[in-house]
């Protein structure tokens, strides 16, 4: 087992990701942040907190998206659904999707389907804490990356969040 990101590194990475999003979307004009349920939300919560330190909090539009009913593996396993909360229109907005780990790309594929049922965004970007570069199964690439790592299929990347696991780090198992 190896720790890829420590608690301190996660905090720094979150700060950097928030700044990179702002760099591309000054004052977050026409830009919304949407975290993917359930695990992407831990990261998006932190990014949104960070953004609110820099720009007026009222200009940060933040939603959560559940993709359970859009998964492509429903015939293999049913997952517990979570709440989707998108209290604004995404029509013609720049959407920054946030998830913890990008690996096969299937979650993001489902998320795009789910997202498009809420309207037609001008642009969708992807922000992830960890990009597992190998074993992608769809042509999907992130726009903002916390840490890119090269792993083999048998390895596992586990993200721990303070709110849920009482510790915060990313481990490679």
């Amino acid at each position, binding site marked *: 087992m190896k720790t890829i990101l420590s608690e301190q590194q996660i905090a720094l990475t979150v700060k950097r990701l928030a700044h990179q999003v702002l760099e591309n979307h000054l004052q977050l004009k026409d830009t919304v942040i949407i975290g993917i349920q359930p695990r992407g939300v831990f990261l998006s919560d932190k990014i949104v907190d960070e953004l609110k330190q820099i720009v007026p909090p009222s200009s940060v539009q933040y939603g959560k998206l559940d993709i359970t*009913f*859009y998964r492509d593996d429903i015939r*293999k*396993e*049913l997952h517990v659904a*979570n*709440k*989707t909360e998108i209290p604004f229109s995404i029509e013609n907005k720049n959407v920054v999707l946030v998830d913890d780990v990008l690996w096969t790309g299937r979650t993001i594929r489902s998320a795009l389907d789910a997202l498009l*049922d*809420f309207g037609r965004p001008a642009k969708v970007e992807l922000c992830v804490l960890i990009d597992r570069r190998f074993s992608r199964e769809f042509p999907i690439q992130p726009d903002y990356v916390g840490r890119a790592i090269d792993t083999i299929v048998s390895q596992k990347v586990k993200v721990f969040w303070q709110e849920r696991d009482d510790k915060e780090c990313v481990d490679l198992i």
Partner: protein
Amino acid sequence: MKLSTKHLLGIKDLTKEDIQLILSTASNFKDVLQRPVKKVPSLRDVTIVNLFYENSTRTRISFELAEKRLSADTINFTASGSSAAKGETLLDTVNNILSMKVDMVVMRHSASGAPHFLAKHIPAAIVNAGDGINEHPTQALLDAFSMQEKFGSLEGLKVAIIGDIMHSRVALSNIYLLKKMGAEIIVAGPPTLIPKYITEALGVKVEYNLKKALQWCDVANVLRIQLERQNQPLFSSLREYNLSYGVSRKLLESLGKEITIMHPGPINRGVELDSDVADGPYSIVLNQVENGVAVRMAALYLLSPQTT
């Protein structure tokens, strides 16, 4: 995350966890139904047949909408105008339909136990949409969902089930469900419409005085008088029934408390429920209908075929 059963034949076979899972999933589907695109692709590879051997408006439309909102393909079968009228047996009909690659069966039948019989003989998942005087599980689930939505929890909730308990599959499914979820139940109605040993068999209290039952409860689930299932006269006239067991506005106002009124439909207006109660502020009848689609989506989604 899975139900403990392969079919939804009755609430009797479900565990408390099953019921909680269906209700929480239904709440997610209710959110979906509030969106501009009220549809998810979950069951786009599933074909469902709705077999209705008995008349239905709400349940049939509700199931069909639920299936369409899940992107399933649906076919509808009604007994009249089908080969059932030529004498084809239930099993033959279903096997013929299944040979055309149908994955799930939603069935309503006038014979109690018909879906249970089918479950023993066919591989597809079966959802009971009402069998005779036995059970109507999705109705009980949508009733529970509506009560939970209104009161937050079913635990300790006081529910009066009123009217034709004897012939009501809604009553039986509701009793099973509410007991499992920790609610308190009184059944009320004329002695001829309440099964004799119901207290011993199901552990519910019986009250023959409507006003006392209403005074005790938080929710009154008023049932339809099922004249089509009554082979002999069990009360002298509908007018008399209305006078002793009809829920009227005047009666509700005399209680000194507010109670919530539910009815599974179709309503016999002026018999078990007066119009000004059915359409009044305490009635959640139309919420029940709305919630029905979400609850049926949850049941179908959770029972949909798994390949591994």
